[in-house]
């Protein structure tokens, strides 16, 4: 009987030396990516490296005579015992916990609306894009005016329906609520765009099959739309979370972190430490801590996108 032993016949593979053509192609390849690498080094790698170095130094521009001594992890130790660091971190977590799901729910509603077979689609799509196109600070200012105590439209409506005026921007809880509303309004259109793209990839025949199978519209939404949108929802949630960690502009424009520090985010605290208090060493350590959290989220996203989204659908 003829047998075949794969272990015996396995050839020993030795990498062949590169030919001249391959060598020159490799050099050309390296040369081609060099400009991109230099650019990335200048705008990403170098600043991050500098940040890491500064975070291990005592560097306060208000005390220049102290120089920039190396202090190891002292700045990090200080951060972990700093009550304001924890308070602003907690505020940031609250914004993430409220505005990310909020933007997804509102964004999903907007995406479903925009996905309807309207005869004229551009007003819906324009309405969807407008909040996204607006600068963050501008959105913050608009909402500050909305929630203003005396002339704000929100209090006007409350009075119109017979309710008392509320101190939206001076009450710690209400200020957080107002900021969350503004952030959700501003960010849900971005989420809606991602989800709309996801919705448009769901084949119509699945809904037709479900309809014949006896599913109601609500059952079709639960059984087809939501699971098929899962990859888009996860991508939107991760993108939104990464930007929510860095929340700055809207609370800065609406309350500047007040009343007290009740609406201050970690990004605002870093800004105040470095720009207002000129403590670059400590501010850098805070920034590194925030960067690590963002990095973990990004890694999670990259790990997720390595999978085949159609299989995941």
């Amino acid at each position, binding site marked *: 009987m003829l047998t075949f032993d794969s272990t015996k016949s396995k050839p020993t593979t030795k990498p062949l030396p590169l030919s001249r053509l391959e060598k020159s192609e490799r050099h050309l390849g390296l040369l081609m990516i060099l400009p991109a690498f230099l650019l990335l080094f200048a705008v990403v790698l170098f600043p991050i490296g500098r940040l890491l170095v500064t975070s291990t130094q005592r560097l306060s521009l208000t005390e220049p005579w102290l120089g920039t001594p190396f202090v190891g992890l002292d700045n990090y130790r200080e951060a972990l015992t700093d009550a304001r660091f924890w308070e602003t971190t907690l505020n940031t977590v609250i914004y993430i916990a409220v505005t990310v799901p909020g933007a997804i729910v509102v964004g999903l509603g907007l995406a479903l609306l925009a996905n309807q077979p309207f005869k004229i689609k551009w007003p819906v799509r324009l309405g969807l894009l407008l909040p996204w196109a607006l600068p963050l600070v501008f959105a913050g200012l608009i909402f500050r005016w909305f929630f203003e105590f005396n002339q704000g439209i929100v209090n006007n409506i409350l009075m119109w329906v017979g309710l008392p005026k509320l101190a939206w921007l001076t009450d710690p809880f209400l200020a957080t609520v107002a900021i969350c509303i503004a952030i959700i309004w501003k960010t849900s259109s971005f989420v809606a765009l991602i989800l709309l793209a996801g919705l448009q990839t769901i084949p119509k025949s699945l809904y037709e099959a479900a309809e014949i199978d006896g599913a109601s519209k609500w059952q079709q939404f639960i059984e087809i739309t939501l699971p*098929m949108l899962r990859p888009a929802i996860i991508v939107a949630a991760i993108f939104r979370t990464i930007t929510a960690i860095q929340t700055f502009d809207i609370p800065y424009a609406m309350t500047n972190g007040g009343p007290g520090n009740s609406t201050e985010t970690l990004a605002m605290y870093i800004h105040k430490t470095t720009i207002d208090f000129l403590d670059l060493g400590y501010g850098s350590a805070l920034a590194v801590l925030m960067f690590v959290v963002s990095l973990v989220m990004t890694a999670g996203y990259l790990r997720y996108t390595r999978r085949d989204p159609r299989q995941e659908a």
Partner: protein
Amino acid sequence: MAGVEIRQVVKQYGRVEVLHGVDLSVRDGEFVVLVGPSGCGKSTLLRMIAGLEGITGGEIAIDGTVVNDMPPRERDIAMVFQDYALYPHKSVYDNMGFGLRMRGTSKSEIETLVHEAADILQIKHLLERRPGQLSGGQRQRVAMGRAIVRRPKVFLFDEPLSNLDAQLRAEMRVEIKKLHQRFGTTIVYVTHDQIEAMTLADRIAIMKDGHLQQYGTPDEVYNRPANRFVASFIGAPPMNMTPASVSADAQVIRLPSGMDVTPRGANLAACAGRDIVIGLRPEHVALGHDDPSRTPVSGQVELVEPLGSETQATVRVGDARFTGRFSPEAGLKHGQDVTLGLALDRAHFFDAETGEAIRLAA
């Protein structure tokens, strides 16, 4: 089980009318194939039966009940889609059980019915897999499983085999035929493939441009086509069509380029003095002129297509061309002069203007 009645059904998209008053009666347990070229309205008609398209005019009744305003889920039908429309995020088991679950069937009953259907279609080993992990043929089986598991009144198939390769298509044709024999459920099946139509159907409805051209058994549409379109659509290789004129005494047929032929074995009285189109199936074109019942014509071989068991060859006779199915032993060569024997007694004659069939006296 139930019959389907389609009465004067009209479909309009805006001002464009795509179905112009179609009448079709599908008997209880019958396998009817809607066939026609792209854009003829066959899929639209099927989707109207399913309830996925509204009905502009006319009436559709399933099992005696008019379903014009009834949503798909209340029609008790099942449909197999061209792209299978399997839920990609659900397992094969959940795909098959989905319709039962939506109708409130108990878990244990769903399990019994799904396993029973999976057994019939030999997909029991695939129940835990997702559609993305299946081959085209397996997906097709799952789509059929999803349809049969509910035991609906009517099965609707929308070009279900068009995404499969030739071998799988032939296999699945057999499966579908077996399923029909097993369950005896009424089936309305849409295809553009006339071989599928001929092999599967009890009756074939041939459509063109939103009109029903002919509705009959495979034998009827093949052997007694109602018009030139049906004649050329059904049959592969297609029927030879040759314009001609018949003399006033019906004794001479003048072919293109002025060649006169004296027909043998056919009484052309009904065509006397008319411009006609002669339709002759390739199997009715033979080599040689020994057979006295055949009409001899001379020509030159223009194209030879050897298929192994037979050779198809096109012979140019004046300006006319006749494709025939010949024995490979004949050794036909391109450019060879040959004499063909045309079995004009088996030919079909169509009015040159209207394309309608002219029935000859026996």
